[in-house]
């Protein structure tokens, strides 16, 4: 008989090792899945993890790693603050959409003015859009005790409908021959979030992602508020005695995660995507939840996890075009990763022992 024995303290070694173990397990079971789909598992896994980094066309794919990783890291950093304190914002996808709409809306309002202040204003508007969208569940939770999980998630569907509405109406390109979607911000210089070094994939969103990692690291390790966040998550009763103000914490955590998700959306719409359209959002807000957990809710971990997840996106696309691997297979692959991570976390908090048989 096997019994679990709760560790007095979570194991440090296992907490670093579980993400790696989970990745290996996902590769094995993902390979199995690809084999069932009739693909060579070794080739498929190789294509996903090797090709974008060291393959023949890696000069094209490596910059993509930054482009895809930046929104994931930005959103996940915000989410991780709340998750640590037991505040579950799972509507980042909606905040991402609202950030994009607000940011692009401000940019398009200035069209075709060529002024230096257009882009900074768009950044502020994007962050505001995400923030205000996250403030709805935050306010309702503080004021009425409403469950923030359900409210933030419902708001994703509302935001998606709003996105459809503006891309067919308010923000539609007047010179677009009646097609849905806004003007392309890439061809409007004052609003374009262009690459800072041509061909590197480095745009302002990537910079913001790195800054957010540093900001979160400092906050969690050197600031009273960060201490309160960690305390609330790890020992809620002790947090009460330490004078933590829960409403303030809720407003802060949801606000920051909303603003960061909004920024991610704004940088995406003004850069890599360029256009506000019905299918603008591709699920970064949900994948970022996996990134946050895979990174152990730790800023540095999230940076690494964001890179890994971006790799599966890009590698997945390559495998799709070269091996005919269905896009959904990558989605399953990413979901699997979260499963294994949560399962192996058992080893962080519990010791597995063979029970001595004794008479109870």
């Amino acid at each position, binding site marked *: 008989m096997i019994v*679990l024995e*709760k560790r007095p303290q979570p194991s440090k070694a296992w907490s670093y090792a579980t993400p790696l173990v989970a990745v290996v397990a996902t590769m094995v079971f993902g390979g199995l899945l690809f084999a069932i789909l009739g693909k060579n598992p070794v080739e498929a896994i190789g294509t996903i993890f090797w090709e974008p980094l060291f393959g023949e066309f890696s000069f094209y794919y490596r910059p993509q790693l930054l482009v895809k990783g930046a929104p994931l890291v930005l959103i996940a950093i915000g989410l991780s603050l709340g998750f640590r304190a037991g505040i*579950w914002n*799972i509507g980042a996808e909606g905040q991402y959409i609202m950030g994009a709409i607000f940011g692009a809306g401000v940019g398009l309002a200035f069209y075709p003015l060529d002024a230096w202040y257009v882009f900074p204003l768009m950044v502020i508007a994007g962050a505001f859009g995400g923030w205000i969208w996250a403030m*709805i569940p935050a306010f*309702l939770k503080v004021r*009425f*005790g*409403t*469950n923030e*999980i*359900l*409210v933030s*998630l*419902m*708001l*994703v*569907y*509302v935001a998606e*409908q*709003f996105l*459809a*509405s503006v891309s*067919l*109406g308010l923000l539609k390109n007047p010179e677009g021959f009646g097609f849905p979607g806004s003007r392309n911000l890439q061809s409007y210089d004052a609003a374009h979030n262009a690459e800072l070094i041509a061909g590197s994939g480095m745009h302002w969103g990537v910079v913001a992602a790195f800054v957010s990692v540093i900001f979160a690291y400092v906050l969690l390790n050197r600031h009273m508020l960060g201490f309160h966040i960690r305390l609330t998550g790890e020992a809620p009763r002790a947090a009460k005695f330490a004078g933590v103000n829960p409403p303030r914490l809720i407003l802060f955590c949801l606000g920051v995660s909303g603003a960061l998700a909004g920024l991610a959306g704004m940088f995406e719409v003004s850069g890599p995507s360029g256009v506000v359209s019905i299918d603008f959002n591709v699920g970064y807000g*949900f994948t970022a*939840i*996996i990134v946050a*957990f895979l990174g152990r809710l730790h800023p540095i971990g999230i940076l690494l996890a964001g890179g890994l997840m971006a790799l599966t996106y890009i590698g997945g696309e390559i495998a799709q075009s070269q091996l005919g691997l*269905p*896009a*959904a*297979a*990558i*989605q*399953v*692959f*990413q*979901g*699997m990763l*979260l*499963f294994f991570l*949560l*399962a*192996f*976390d*058992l080893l962080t*908090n*519990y010791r597995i022992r063979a029970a001595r048989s004794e008479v109870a």
Partner: protein
Amino acid sequence: MNLGEINPILLIASLMVAATPLLLAAIGELVVEKAGVLNLGVEGMMIVGAISGFAISVETGSPWLGFVAAAMGGALLSLLFVLLTQFALANQVASGLALTLFGLGLSALLGQSYVGIKPPSMGDIHIPVLSDLPVIGPILFQHDPILYVGIALTAGVWAMLKYTRAGLILRAVGENHDAAHALGYKVVRIRVLALLFGGACAGLGGAYISLIRVPQWTEGMTAGVGWIALALVVFASWKPWRTLLGAYLFGGITVLQLNLQAAGVAIPVEYLAMSPYIITILVLVILSADKSRAPASLGRIFHASH
């Protein structure tokens, strides 16, 4: 705009159809939460149920077999949640999210070759005399059999929780798992059974969407119904008959906004389509004042240390 085209009898009849997937999923989740477990993976289990039911009924030509497969598919997925939360003692919120993300991917993968196919129809029941009654007939006695299964399930769960020993034990486990454990009840075993039941119900609800309500397969077709079902359980303050009432209320809103879209009301389509989600939020706000009815052990991890 032509509101006169909306037929009230058809409206009420289609309201019941729109409410059934919600009801099935919510009644399953109600049992799960009564046992003290919060499974946020309802959306994932529904969509997997939707595709497994669809695939099996297309392959075999029998919608009945499809529904059986859907229940099994949903239960199978909930088994993953069981492994994570009951045996690996993982956080229930995170595990539920994992289940939904995984289920959405899996269903898209399984459903690739089923896009654009029409599933075999189940047909509506016909009871002589009753079904032919004017007004009442089309509203109450001309539906597909699964709709009645949903109502029967609600009654069954109500009776089970209220009058049977099994229901009493289930509630004890949900209220205080340590006390239930001390009395010798198998907390984990009871919760596993409740979760499997919840998964099967969610699967049925999903298949109802893909086989009867729409009927077709498209990726992500449950579109948040699983999440609304979770809200519905709170709305109903964990009471079966209130769940039925709530489901019909939400079904009514869905059908009404679709009818208004068709009638060409001056409100843009997108804003009408938002309404079920916004109303869910409003209902949650109104009801969140009273949390006293929630099972006391809801969402807490059970680990028997002795």
